[in-house]
């Protein structure tokens, strides 16, 4: 048998193997450390430029690039469809409108239109286009025929019918008349006030190239052609969208905004809020929405933090289909039992303003300044509950799991109602399931916490709570004919003063019905690197092309 005295003997196996002397330990540690350093060194790179405290001007040579975050991937960039916010955010840079909101405001300014003249009865709108405005990818000059095509396709007046979800925005459209190459008239069936707040300056008012849509067909959705300062260059699904500066940009926005400065805009898809914050700190993005839990941290880190209160609203609704909630005393008991400031502190870091009604102060029309702000009043709540005759009732509360802070809101409400003797069973429901309506789903839902978005017109906020929306988006199953009729009137009344009165009255009716506890007007917070000046609409929509450095 070969016996190597350097190797452990049979009877010493296990004993000597455990002994690692100092020399051996240092030898092995040295090998491990050297290997790790070599591996990391081959993969590492220096800290990316534009990190904390580094101004953008010191970035690498090559095209200047603005990198911002998309909260989810794009899916359809056709203005007729535009399913989600990331699509809208991308489209702002690609498309233009006849008339737009001046960046940072809701002041209307001519963009593609040289002239824009509504008739006195607001049934027709004469437009004259600026000449020489080119579409991307050599699809030619913008003409009045493109305007006709852009609007009528969404309105459902073309064959085949696109079945656009935004048909409602053009429901008043009778036709678009083309009078010559650059002029036309938009004819309406009836006056429609939101035309100049939601439609013309919004995504249903984006001008597309007829030639491009007809040529590209379905692929237009992911190969959009507009006239905007940036054109669609690349889409890496689930990763990023790349826009490049449009060399032939007409400068349609030059009267109200400086020329875009970035050669490229890259929009990185980052679904996770924590990861987005880390991406900003690591320099992977220049600007991003940040979660509420990170606001104070970013404010103290020296990064720029910007906030905007959106037009949306969060509320706790009561299901009037259920016999329990048809008693106004129960509804009032719940209203006075819930501690809304406590909810705001617990669920939203105290960073969202308390809502007093559906329309926030930033809405151009419709804010109800005198709306009552209900404080928690346990004595009052108990007294209303006593009038119902109910003894220790149990109710269900559901919330959408994707609703930020929803779980905390529900728990606070549960605790608040427990203090007046109402037991609450809380159930978080997945988003798709939460949207289910119909009697079975409805009966499970006594209280619910929900939030809707809105845009720059109160009609957008109010339309979901009319009688027409039962079994659709009116989860409270509240049908008030006066409310429904007034809401309809608010859409056709074009005088701003009268509209203001209508929308205040609508909110007064709603307040009297006591079927909702208003929680918050959501506020989004953004953080950006030093040296970046973001451009945002008052409601928080990101206008990347107008960012400055």
């Amino acid at each position, binding site marked *: 048998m070969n016996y190597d005295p350097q190797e452990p003997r049979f009877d010493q196996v296990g004993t000597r193997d455990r002994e690692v002397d100092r020399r051996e330990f240092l030898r092995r540690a040295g090998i491990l450390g050297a290997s790790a350093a070599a591996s990391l060194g081959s993969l590492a790179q220096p800290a990316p430029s534009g990190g904390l405290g580094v101004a953008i001007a010191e970035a690498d040579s090559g095209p200047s690039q603005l990198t911002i975050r998309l909260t989810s991937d794009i899916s359809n960039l056709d203005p007729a469809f535009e399913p989600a916010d990331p699509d809208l955010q991308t489209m702002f840079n690609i498309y233009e409108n006849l008339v737009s909101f001046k960046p940072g405001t809701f002041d209307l300014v001519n963009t593609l239109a040289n002239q824009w003249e509504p008739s006195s009865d607001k049934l027709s709108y004469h437009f004259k286009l600026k000449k020489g405005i080119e579409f991307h990818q050599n699809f030619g000059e913008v003409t009045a025929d493109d305007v006709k095509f852009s609007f009528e396709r969404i309105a459902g007046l073309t064959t085949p019918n696109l079945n656009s979800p935004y048909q409602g925005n053009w429901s008043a459209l009778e036709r678009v008349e083309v009078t010559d190459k650059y002029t036309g008239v938009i004819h309406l069936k009836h006056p429609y006030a939101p035309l100049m707040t939601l439609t013309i300056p919004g995504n249903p008012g984006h001008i597309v190239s007829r030639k491009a849509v007809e040529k590209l067909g379905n692929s237009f959705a992911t190969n959009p052609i507009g006239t905007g300062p940036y054109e669609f260059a690349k889409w890496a*699904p689930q990763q990023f969208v790349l826009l490049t500066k449009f060399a032939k940009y007409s400068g349609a926005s030059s009267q109200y905004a400086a020329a875009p400065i970035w050669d490229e805009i890259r929009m990185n898809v980052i679904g996770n809020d924590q990861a987005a914050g880390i991406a900003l700190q690591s320099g992977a993005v220049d600007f991003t929405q940040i979660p509420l839990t990170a606001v104070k941290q970013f404010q103290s880190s020296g990064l720029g933090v910007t906030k905007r209160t959106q037009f949306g609203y969060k509320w706790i609704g009561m299901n009037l289909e259920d016999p329990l909630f048809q008693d106004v005393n129960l509804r009032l008991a719940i209203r006075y039992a819930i501690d809304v400031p406590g909810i705001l502190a617990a669920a939203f870091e105290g960073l969202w303003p308390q809502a007093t009604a559906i329309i926030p102060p930033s809405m151009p029309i419709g804010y109800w300044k005198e709306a009552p702000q209900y404080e928690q009043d346990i004595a009052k709540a108990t007294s209303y509950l006593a009038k119902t005759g109910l003894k220790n009732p149990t109710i269900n509360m559901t919330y959408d799991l994707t609703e930020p802070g929803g779980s905390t809101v529900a728990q606070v409400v549960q605790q608040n109602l427990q203090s007046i003797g109402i037991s609450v069973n809380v159930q978080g429901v997945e988003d798709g399931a939460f949207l289910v309506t119909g009697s079975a789903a409805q009966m499970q839902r006594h209280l619910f916490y929900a939030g809707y978005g809105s845009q720059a017109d109160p009609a957008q906020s109010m339309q979901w709570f009319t009688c027409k929306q039962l079994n659709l988006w009116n989860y409270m199953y509240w049908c008030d004919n006066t409310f429904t009729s007034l809401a309809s009137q608010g859409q056709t009344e074009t005088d701003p003063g009268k509209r203001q009165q209508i929308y205040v009255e609508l909110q007064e009716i709603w307040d009297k019905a006591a079927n909702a506890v208003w929680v918050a007007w959501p506020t989004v917070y953004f953080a950006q690197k030093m040296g970046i000046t973001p451009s945002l609409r008052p409601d928080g929509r990101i206008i990347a092309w107008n960012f400055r450095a």
Partner: protein
Amino acid sequence: MIVYIVKRALMAFVVVVLLMVFLGVLVHLIPGDPVKIILGQQASPALSEQVRVQMGLDKPVATQVWLFVWHALRGDLGTDFITHVPVLTLIADALPHTVVLAIAGLGLAVVLGVPLGVYAASHANSLGDRVTALLSVSLITMPAYIAGLLLLLAFTVELPLVPSIGTGSFEHPLDYLRHLLLPAVALGSTWIGYIARMVRTSMIEVLNSNYIRTARAYGLKQRTILYKHALKNALIPTVAVLGVGLGHLMGGAVLIENIFSRSGLGQLILGAIATRNYPVIRGGVLAIAVLFVVTNLIADLSYRFLDPRIRVEIGGSGRQGGPG
């Protein structure tokens, strides 16, 4: 042997077909109306009905399932409800990144876990063994999600060494690897611990075998004993688990893809579930299921090379394997 392989392949095919039927039914059990979710608040009832017909959702569930299975067997997984991109294209774009991530995670787990396990076994009950045990259990109990966020903070913010987000491109392999490193470590960290513990346990058992004692008696080097004679047998249970592990990692890849904003099948399916994009859900889950079945098949067949006893059973020879 060929007959065995063909039989296993046929069984795998049957499993996949049954899976397709099951999937086809399962998506319809998810509550929520895809038309409502896709069209959003803007859609009128009339419009919703028109779109429902266009999407084929007006047909009975059994018909929809049959159509899905029939088309899938012919390689047609339908088109995305929203983007109208063929589902096969979406999967072809996303799948390689998920597979690479899962393999990288598992590969890291094997490369680090096996030596850890071997060391622990060969130094059983020593301080080193206890430290390894502590490390292994810590890795097993730390969720990949948390590991990912910690790694992001450590190696992209505090020590900015690698990119924090993104996938990179196959056209730039080094850049792709840089984007892959942290996600692979985050994903594989749990399995480093699992493999280390498994290898330790089976190695200790093998090291107490008579043939190992004989090898030592012959004076073979410790390294030879461990890595040439003992490990091969000790790895058999680990290989069995690796097949399952790859499937587990592909599922875990969803969270990692989300944190690191990587392209992948997990992200694709997650987004599709939120919007009830049935064709993408079915196609994506089917792709993962097929991968799972195939990897398990490969794992099963690999036993042949590792364990001569299985080779004999399959081949029908009366001779037993082992050192002789």
